[in-house]
């Protein structure tokens, strides 16, 4: 299995723990990821607010490079990248005017985008290409007793529900259970974290993150598992500000891939739990009897 890998800017920056943990996990499962040659920023939510045509053209450059590479499947772990690349595919297919503008623009540099590649999320690949059975076989250190609140956020399920339910997604729940963790019932799993409003309008943005953290604690979770670098940043890095404004809500937020690495028994430098500001408590060592039974 080989995929074109579109990391996006955050996975090279503040969200590096996502890349650092996802790459070894995928490798461990026999998945090959080839980073897209000279990829550019997807445009995220900001570019669409300024110029839709250019936002689509910039995103389409990446799709064109993917098509040129011969790899049909693009793996986009960041929620914003995943949404924007999917949205661009939709626009190119649905709006002839946009298709023409983008095609002409790409032509000036000898690129073509047919819109044939599939933009996929790692959860989709893990459940539908690799399968939970294969994941389970790699688990050497089940996350027994770890109570996890699975946080999907907005942009992988909305507006394009390509691989999961829009209001009650369950792919991450099932993955976490395959790792041996206990999934906490947490109805806020697709509620907005505030996105970039945490920085631009803290009163509104931070409050949304605060609500998520508070409710996760109330539901008995030990940790929140996320799929998005911006959600992780908001729920983790802004903790001191949230504490100062309302109350301390100290619950760690990690990427699902970090929990996978932990369950696979991968070394610390591939699980990178030290990247989080709210530290995750170490897992209880397996009881001697249980360890002997294995």
């Amino acid at each position, binding site marked *: 299995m080989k995929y074109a890998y579109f990391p996006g800017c955050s996975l090279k920056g503040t969200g590096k723990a996502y890349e650092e943990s996802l790459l070894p996990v995928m490798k461990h499962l026999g998945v090959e990821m080839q980073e897209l040659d000279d990829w550019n920023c997807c445009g995220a939510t900001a570019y669409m*607010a300024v110029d839709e045509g250019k936002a689509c053209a910039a995103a389409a450059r990446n799709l064109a490079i993917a098509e040129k590479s011969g790899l049909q499947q693009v793996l986009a772990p960041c929620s914003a990248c995943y949404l924007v690349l999917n949205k661009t595919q939709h626009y190119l297919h649905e709006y002839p005017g946009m298709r023409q503008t983008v095609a002409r623009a790409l032509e000036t540099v000898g690129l073509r985008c047919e819109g044939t590649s599939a933009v996929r999320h790692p959860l989709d690949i893990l459940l539908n290409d690799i399968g939970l059975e294969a994941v389970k076989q790699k688990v050497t250190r089940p996350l027994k007793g770890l109570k996890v609140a699975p946080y999907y956020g907005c942009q992988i399920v909305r507006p394009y529900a390509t691989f999961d339910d829009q209001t009650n997604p369950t792919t991450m729940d099932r993955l976490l259970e395959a790792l041996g963790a206990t999934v906490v019932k947490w109805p806020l799993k697709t509620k907005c974290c505030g996105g970039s409003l945490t920085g631009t309008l803290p009163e509104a943005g931070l409050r949304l993150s605060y609500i998520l953290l508070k409710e996760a604690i109330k539901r008995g979770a030990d940790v929140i598992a996320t799929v998005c670098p911006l959600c992780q940043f908001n729920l983790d890095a802004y903790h001191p500000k949230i504490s100062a404004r309302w109350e301390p809500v100290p619950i760690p937020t990690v990427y699902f891939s970090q929990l996978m690495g932990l369950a696979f028994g991968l070394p610390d430098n591939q699980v990178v739990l030290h990247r989080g500001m709210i530290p995750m408590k170490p897992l209880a060592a397996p009881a001697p009897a249980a360890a002997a039974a294995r």
Partner: protein
Amino acid sequence: MDIKRTIKYEADRVSGFGREVMAVPGCEALEHCIQCGTCSGVCPLSIYMDYTPRQVMELVRSDFKNEVLQSHTIWLCASCYACTTECPRQIRITDIMYELKQRAIKEKVYPKRFPIPVLAEEFTKMVHDYGRISETWLVSKMYLRTNPVAALGMAGLGMNLMKTGRFSLKQDKIERRSELARIMESVDQQNQKAQA
């Protein structure tokens, strides 16, 4: 005391604005809005808005251009798409918000030191110049243009990012920047031609 009229006059309308927006690909379904208010109900940010999403939909359709382009609402939309998935008339409300943001930026009618559109503009510039975003620089530029004093309050955050190895001053860039620039230039030229 600042006393303001709370009811709109018909004379406040900019005739044709609604039609214009509804002609944009993706915004057509607005015509079918039944004003049920589902969008406002599911919106996590509507409690901060000057007009709720439902009101914005009707204001657009009824040609109240100045009211919507100057509203806070369009900038408070965090693109969570809850309204779009829940709308019983399949109106792509989030995309309409994007269309309105673009128009507000084009006509420069947003408050000058309002961080949200400033962030969007700086983001776009950075993609244009380098092809990639470096978060530290992006956020610094936004603060410099909107509220330099508040940047001091972010020092603690920077320190914490440094401690966890997530802080970087490196401006990431792509190799073929001229290629991206040519693509963008071509889109601009095509748009200008279409407008002429």
